[in-house]
């Protein structure tokens, strides 16, 4: 799938798709800092599951692109050790779901060590996340909430090629452990953006308003941001409802100010996620709005998320499970029309 999108970064600086954006960010950061390295399974010749690390070894050498056996637990530990020795590892997970195999290292190592031992753990984890490709529950789930609960971690979840590029660069440069979730559909649909020639970064912890509106605020991240914008366009045309879409981009630390500012204007909020609602990041956003923006609200914060079963395989049930513009549209109509 990824192969056909392997346009060389150099070919066009004007428009880059998600794959090229990630690839460009990795190449530039490896060029900028010779302590940046990649470690993971099948990342050398194969370039990892989506080909993003392909060619890095040829450019930056064997030392900085390390293939491991299938040892998520140990290679993630090793990344913590490498960080403590002054490297800046970018850890490649084949699927974000496999973070369950190294959640100990993420929590007890990466998130705790700076606090306990007064050290920095400048590592970045990249994990392809989310559904839509019929890989089913062990490789398509949305598990950001599980990780988001722990202070010390930074969690990035872009919804566009530009954001993926700018945020990945910031994550690699950050001295805090960062987890970057890359939604697989962004790869699959080759989502692209206009890119400036010059390098740039996007600060961690800053949300972006992806569409302005006055009637309702959607807070979302990842692929559902795109579905939300799509739904908002339709609502604008058909119902004259103007929805503002806030893309969190970084889940932790969360940009509370941007969310609250938007709600102040629209007086209504809805959280749209691909993840389950129970115990979720969406719950955190809703609680935040209610706690700090209660006076601005005309109605309870609505929440859209996945049904309470693991993400299934078969097309009709998987499609019914996923967050779509249609679902968002229907819900907003029920709320507002």
């Amino acid at each position: 799938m990824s192969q056909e999108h392997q346009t060389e970064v150099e070919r066009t600086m004007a428009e880059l798709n998600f794959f090229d954006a990630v690839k460009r960010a990795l190449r530039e950061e490896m060029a900028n800092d010779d302590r940046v390295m990649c470690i993971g399974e099948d990342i050398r010749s194969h370039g990892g599951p989506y080909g993003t690390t392909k060619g890095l070894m040829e450019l930056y050498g064997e030392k900085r692109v390390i293939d491991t056996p299938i040892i998520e637990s140990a290679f993630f530990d090793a990344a913590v050790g490498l960080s403590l020795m002054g490297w800046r590892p970018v850890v490649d997970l084949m699927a974000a779901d496999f973070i369950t195999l190294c959640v100990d290292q993420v929590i007890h190592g990466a998130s705790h060590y700076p606090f306990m031992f007064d050290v920095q753990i400048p590592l970045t984890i990249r994990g392809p996340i989310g559904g839509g490709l019929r890989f089913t529950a062990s490789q398509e789930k949305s598990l950001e909430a599980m990780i988001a609960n722990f202070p010390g971690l930074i969690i990035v979840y872009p919804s566009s090629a530009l954001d993926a590029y700018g945020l990945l660069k910031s994550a690699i440069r950050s001295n805090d452990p960062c987890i970057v979730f890359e939604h697989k559909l962004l790869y699959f649909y080759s989502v692209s953006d206009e890119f400036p020639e010059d390098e740039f970064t996007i600060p961690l912890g800053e949300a972006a308003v992806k569409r302005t509106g006055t009637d309702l605020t959607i807070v979302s991240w990842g692929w559902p941001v795109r579905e939300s914008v799509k739904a908002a366009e339709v609502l604008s045309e058909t119902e004259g409802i103007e929805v503002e879409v806030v893309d969190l981009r970084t889940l932790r630390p969360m940009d509370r100010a941007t969310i609250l500012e938007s709600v102040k204007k629209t007086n209504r909020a809805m959280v749209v996620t691909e993840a389950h609602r129970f115990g979720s990041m969406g719950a955190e956003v809703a609680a935040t709005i209610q706690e700090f923006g209660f006076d601005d609200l005309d109605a309870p914060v609505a929440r859209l998320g996945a049904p309470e079963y693991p993400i299934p395989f078969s097309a009709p049930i998987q499609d019914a499970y996923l967050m779509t513009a249609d679902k968002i549209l229907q819900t907003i109509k029920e709320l507002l029309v």
Partner: protein
Amino acid sequence: MAISKETKTRPASDGAEFLRPSEQLTDDQLVDLYRDIHLIRRFSERQVEEFESGRMPGGLHPGHGHEAISAAVPRAVRPSDYLNGTHRSQNGILALRGVSFRRLWAEVFGRETGINGGRRGVDLMGTFEDDIRVWAHNPVLGHNAGIATGAALALQLDERDEVIVCLIGDGASVCGTVWEACFFAGIRKLPIVYAVENNMVAYTTRFEDMSPIENISDRASAFGFPGQLVDGNDALAVLDAVHTAAERARRGEGPTLLELKTYRFVGHFIGDPQVYRTREEVSEARKSDPLHLFEALLRDRGLLDDAAVTNIHHENLERIDAGLAEAMLDPFPNPADALSRTYRSGTYPMGYSS
């Protein structure tokens, strides 16, 4: 499977040349080694006393019985080499690497001046300070090995001359992460020594109930590097084995799995009823107390007599207690500062939901 009386140190399974730096130790160095073994025992005993008095917070896993290991390992390698102890050996190793008793006690009592600023607590403390290089023990068993393997990878990538010695409990040695780390280290011939402090029990589980084979060192064949069985109560044997393995690693020949057979004389925790073993077994094992064995050896060689022993014991206790007295005057961390270490980049909104 009580500790076998026949546990004698064997050559490594690849039969490579076995170095014996112990033979070159001067009389003074031998006495110093005794001093350190006692120092570590006494420090641990003092912790138990403080704990039982109710003054000491948290939990405690005394390392009585492991002192030959804690004292010999730092001596077996260069001061610039990295060490990573277990909850039994780490305290002693830190003291021998020059961390003052004040800083150690301050951590034990949760003070800001503690080695981890009171954020970590006793027997899991450690430090990534570059002039000490005794890496913190990871309380989630097994992950030590993974993190130390990452350090070894960094040493290899940076073409450095140092090695890391990673100590592991026998219970921890069956964790999957340890196996994963060993495979990776074996493939890449990383400069690491895995040394299992086999005290024949993990919490309440006896060794035979967690290992289908008698010697952990035999597992090394699966990783493609040598394994070696070592009498972990014999400080000189530990010294030689760790030294040989560390030098092998330094030459780029890869890891070694050492099994240092020893015994935990006290419960897993203070107040452990120890139903998993008999009093007879413990008193039998105490006949191989590393402190007494080494004292007897030095008395035999005419290096120690009653007066010298009394003197050493007295000096050690003074050192330990002087540090304790200082630490008890040290301040506690201020809750208002607690957040400051959470994020390094420091520019993020740190409020309630950030």
